[in-house]
């Protein structure tokens, strides 16, 4: 029965796709891609461990907005705030969209600017090969809002995207573009649940010598579901750095597709996910694909998951080194700390290398709290729960280290400590 039902769901979903104004040709091409590939089923290789049903369903599973007294994570940071309320840009809550060296437009205004037209959907389309990413194509076709950011200099402060969630049935689809011109630099912050079900895509074009920093916090809402994708292209001497902290949510799939196209480029993607199945189901999936297509590229994937009470963590990470991408340095580590026997971590590290002079390594581990270290701490007077929290923090430290600026590391640490304090025992 479920096969028939699923087909029906997928068909309904596809039939309902409507193309908003602006970027018409790009949206139509994306819809064609989507119809050709179809929505994923459990048999799809990259969806074996994460059930796509809730992402496919015509309507989202309702999610009660969640409120707590935790201050907003980036509240203390001097930033340019852009707020989306259930996926709709909220001008009143946002700052004035102007900053020197940065141009910010709104997708829903359907601006007719050539840089955006040539970028919109382009990196997503490139990233559809060899692995299909149907929810990304769906996003390009039907995204209703988002920001288009073009950076020509060094941005004076971070752009902070804040996604608030108020409606139980909101189903936002946001598409952002970030185009960094030669030598430009910007930090993009993201936080908030956004809706009951959130499909978000960001295309990041890093030109020669440009630097992109991304720090994202997913959480605060226990019931929300999210499928997100980042597609980036990194040119010569460019830098792409992305870190994600995920602490709540029923279901999260974060894809990151990185294409290193210029020599001496750097790409780092890291994540820390903390899941407690007690506050609801928790399933977190990081799926990464890094293509080295140029010489002397360096890439790092550092993913840590702390799981308890039946939480599930997934990591699928691939490094592809193309012919001629000599002196590539690719590093990948995915680790989980299981705080009980009910939780589960599954990892699929992949290396595919077609150049002979490269250095690539990957490792994956699953373990429990180190009992000897725990006893050592307790023997010094640290109570068991506090000692456990300290060991958890030390476990995720490597991922947090991937964040360059201390003020963001500190913000993340504060959030982590808060989570640990709330999820003891």
């Amino acid at each position, binding site marked *: 029965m479920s096969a028939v039902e699923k087909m029906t769901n997928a068909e309904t979903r596809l039939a309902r796709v409507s193309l908003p104004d602006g970027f018409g040709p790009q949206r139509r091409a994306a819809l064609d891609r989507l119809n050709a590939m179809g929505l994923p089923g459990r048999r799809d290789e990259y969806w074996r461990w994460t059930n796509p049903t809730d992402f496919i369903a015509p309507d989202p599973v309702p999610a009660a907005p969640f409120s707590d007294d935790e201050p907003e994570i980036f509240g203390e940071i001097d930033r340019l705030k852009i707020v989306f309320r259930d996926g709709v840009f909220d001008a009143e809550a946002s700052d004035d969209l102007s900053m020197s060296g940065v141009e910010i437009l709104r997708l829903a205004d359907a601006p007719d600017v050539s840089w955006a037209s040539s970028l919109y959907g382009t990196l997503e389309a490139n990233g559809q090969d060899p692995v299909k990413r149907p929810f990304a194509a769906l996003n390009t076709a039907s995204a209703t809002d988002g920001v288009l950011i073009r950076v020509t200099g060094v941005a004076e402060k971070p752009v902070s995207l804040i996604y608030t969630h108020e409606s139980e049935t909101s189903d936002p689809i946001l598409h952002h573009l970030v185009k960094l011109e030669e030598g430009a630099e910007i930090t993009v912050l993201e936080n908030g649940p956004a809706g009951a079900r959130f499909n978000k895509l960001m295309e990041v074009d890093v030109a020669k010598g440009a630097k992109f920093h991304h720090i994202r916090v997913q959480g605060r809402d226990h019931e929300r579901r999210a499928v997100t994708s980042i597609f980036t292209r990194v040119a010569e001497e460019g830098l792409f750095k992305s870190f994600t902290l995920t602490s709540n949510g029923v279901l999260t799939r974060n894809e990151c597709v990185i294409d290193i196209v210029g020599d001496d480029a750097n790409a780092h993607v890291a994540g820390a996910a903390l899941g407690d199945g007690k506050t609801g189901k928790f399933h977190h999936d990081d799926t990464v694909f890094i293509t080295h297509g140029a010489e002397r590229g360096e890439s790092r994937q550092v993913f840590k998951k702390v799981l308890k009470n039946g939480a599930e963590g997934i990591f699928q990470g691939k490094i592809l080194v193309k012919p001629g991408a000599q002196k590539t340095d690719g590093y990948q580590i995915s680790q989980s700390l299981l705080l009980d026997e009910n939780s589960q971590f599954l990892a699929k590290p992949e290396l595919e290398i077609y150049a002979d002079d490269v250095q690539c390594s990957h490792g994956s581990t699953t373990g429990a709290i180190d009992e000897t270290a725990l006893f050592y*701490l307790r*023997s010094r*007077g640290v109570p*068991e729960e*506090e000692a456990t929290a300290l*060991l958890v923090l*030390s476990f995720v430290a490597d991922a947090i280290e991937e964040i360059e600026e201390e003020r963001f590391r500190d913000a993340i640490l504060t959030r982590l400590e808060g989570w640990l304090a709330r999820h003891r025992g």
Partner: protein
Amino acid sequence: MLDIKNLHVKLEEEDKQILKGVNLSVESGKVHAIMGPNGSGKSTLSYVLSGRDGYEVTEGEAHLNDTDLLDSEPEERAAAGLFLAFQYPVEIPGVGNMTFLRTALNAQRKARGEEEISAGDFLKLVRGKAKSLKIDADMLKRPVNVGFSGGEKKRNEILQMAILEPKMCILDETDSGLDVDAMRLVAEGVNALRDEGRSFLVITHYQRLLDHIKPDVVHIMADGRIIETGGPELALEVEKNGYADLLAKHGISEVMA
């Protein structure tokens, strides 16, 4: 201070009796030494006293002043004033030494109803103690014991002891792996802490350490029991003649010691 009566301990996982009736009393302000052949149960005794998992007490009791040690969590024992300098100090990657020390000190203060130490006072305290043990600032910044040499790890144990100021200090072979100068530093660190209200139980294989830390009482442990107790001269005798005569006197074959 420390009172151990008829302590019997077996391994939790297998049916192996390790301590077979240990009796030991350490008075306030005194230094007691324990010597004994490898495998006689010295480390086991120190672990059981500090509350490590994996052991089952089948008989006997152990008190630190009014605290029933065997009925307390490891952190409660620490708060009551017990400290074990480990024979094999543990590495904790990802936890900075300073964080570790501050967390431990504040946890103990909290358990005793005292206020947390201020960041400034803490820094001053650690710097002062570290300097006298010749522990450099770099070691303090690194993760706990990670990449420390054997001797550095032992000095780090003494640093923790100096900062936590416990009442009952158990030193499990703190001298092994130390060079001559480090041994002197460690001994000075211990002697600086000697006090009316503080006692030491020093586990060692060598008279050398006892030259620096003069014990009041020396015990010989073999086959899970204290078989002989005496003054400092007992250590000198062992140093000279080994354990053979003592073991024979108590009917313990060398193999099973």
